[in-house]
């Protein structure tokens, strides 16, 4: 695990293994999710992988009625909007991900600050498989 380069390819592979991984600067302890290979705080190149526990809270969200083709193929449309948002992890870093288990047609019932837990959505098969980062109310 330690040998994987600190980039988006590794990040995606970890997701497919049900792991949300970030990089932590060995010099100043700054945390980056998705990983960065260069610390933007102290500009060190010394990073180590660290796994997130998967707990967080909702910072911002949107309910999308007109989405890109890959979301429409999952069955979302104007009558069935999906929810996506920004989540602040317990460890302090923020990530963007789908928000599951909430009603996209009732945005007024979705509250900023609600506690969320991580889940992984595996879609497609073989070479076309992708894992989407998602959260749902805990």
């Amino acid at each position, binding site marked *: 695990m330690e040998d994987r380069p600190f980039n*988006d390819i590794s990040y995606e592979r970890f997701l497919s293994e049900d792991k949300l991984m970030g990089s932590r600067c060995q010099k100043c302890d700054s945390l980056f*999710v*998705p990983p960065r290979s260069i610390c933007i705080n102290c500009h060190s190149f010394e990073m180590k992988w660290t796994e997130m526990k998967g707990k967080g809270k909702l*910072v*911002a*969200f*949107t*309910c*999308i*009625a*007109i*989405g*890109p*083709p890959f*979301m429409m193929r999952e069955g979302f449309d*104007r009558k069935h*909007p*999906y929810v*996506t*948002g*920004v989540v602040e992890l317990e460890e302090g870093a*923020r*990530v*963007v*991900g*789908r928000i599951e288990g909430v009603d*996209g047609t009732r*945005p007024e019932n979705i509250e*900023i*600050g609600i506690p969320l837990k991580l889940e992984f959505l595996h879609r497609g098969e073989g070479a076309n498989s*992708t894992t*989407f*980062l998602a959260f749902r109310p805990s």
Partner: protein
Amino acid sequence: MRGQRRLGRGVAMVGAGMSKFGMFSDKDSKYLFAEAFHEMVSTIDKGLDPKDIDALYLGNFTNDFFVHQGHWGPIVSDLLGLAPRPATRTEGACASSALAFREGVFAIASGFYDVVLVGGVEEMSKRSTEEVTQGLAMAASPYEVKAGFTFPGVFGAIATAYFAKYGASREHLMNVTIKSHSNARLNPKAQFNVSIRDIMDQRIAKAKSKGEIAPTWGDEKEFLRDPRANPVVAWPMHLFDCCPISDGASCALLVSEELARDFTDDPLYVVGIGQGSGKGLHAKEDLTYFEATRYAAQEAYGLSGFKPEDIQVAEVHDCFSIAEILHIEDLGFFKQGEGYKAVAEGLTRLDGPKPINTSGGLKCKGHPVGATGIGQLVEIWKQLRGEAGDRQVPIRDLRIGAAQSLGGTGGTCTLAILERR
């Protein structure tokens, strides 16, 4: 930043023009640019010999994707008969021509060139809405795209964070939309030059002519609350919070300060210019402001010596209604968290103390992305010279205006300040 920003010599804007913005099945990028150039030439009182143009800087974002042709600098140079003089394309997503303007200013300030044409062009409407959405997503971060974010979605999420922090609501965003439409009603170049009231009247008349029951909206906000009239796109962004898909072009002629009066007796001077870059949505510490705009503003104010309160009229990048509120705060016109109140109080109206987006903004004037940055400066050009017609701001001694652009989700932000002397 280390030290004070400075220009090697003064730069003046001596001409400006734009095509009509809209969706045109019969106009291509070259035709649109020719239209803008034609208007620009007509504004140069003492005439322009195109042979005097030393170089072209052209902003364009997505013609690679939408027109399958990426190399637009020389195409436009050839169109205008400028070849073999150099042509450079700039890309900064929706701020692409704001970067062309900046490069043009630097080229003259450095002393390298004396006369530079800067412009922007975009041709978007011949593609489906899905293709345009996908093309514009090229300006977002890959993480946002994968999470299903669209551009209305990014600004929708920003709005929810702003609402939660400052107690604003959708009703406040409606004030921005209503104002943009009432300004655009007075702008013949605007894609939607109708007020919300005009649209309501048209819909009522249409229903009556079909023998249907006419809708009975009490006022503009009731119309905007009606999901049949104003459906959700990416909550809380609804149709009337979003700029349209547009085709269009814009351009301006920049010359060294000492040459300005050879072209016109009424030049504008580029006194402030700034640019910043920003991070993706997940990496921002706070979603309710754009650090890139604040940086650009600091640079431009520092260079000009002017303060936010000195800016008398401004165009800001209202790709979505919430963006206008964030920008007027980031530029220091209003305090953080109070922009929505200023709009509600009418302070940003055409007849208010700080008129914002007198052109109708991106929402109503249209947003042909690569043409927008200089399109905004065309409006400031008209306002400062007193040539804005029915939408001329009634401020006396109008002499300082500014235009702010944003690319992507705040990845590239700019501010330019113009002064009439």
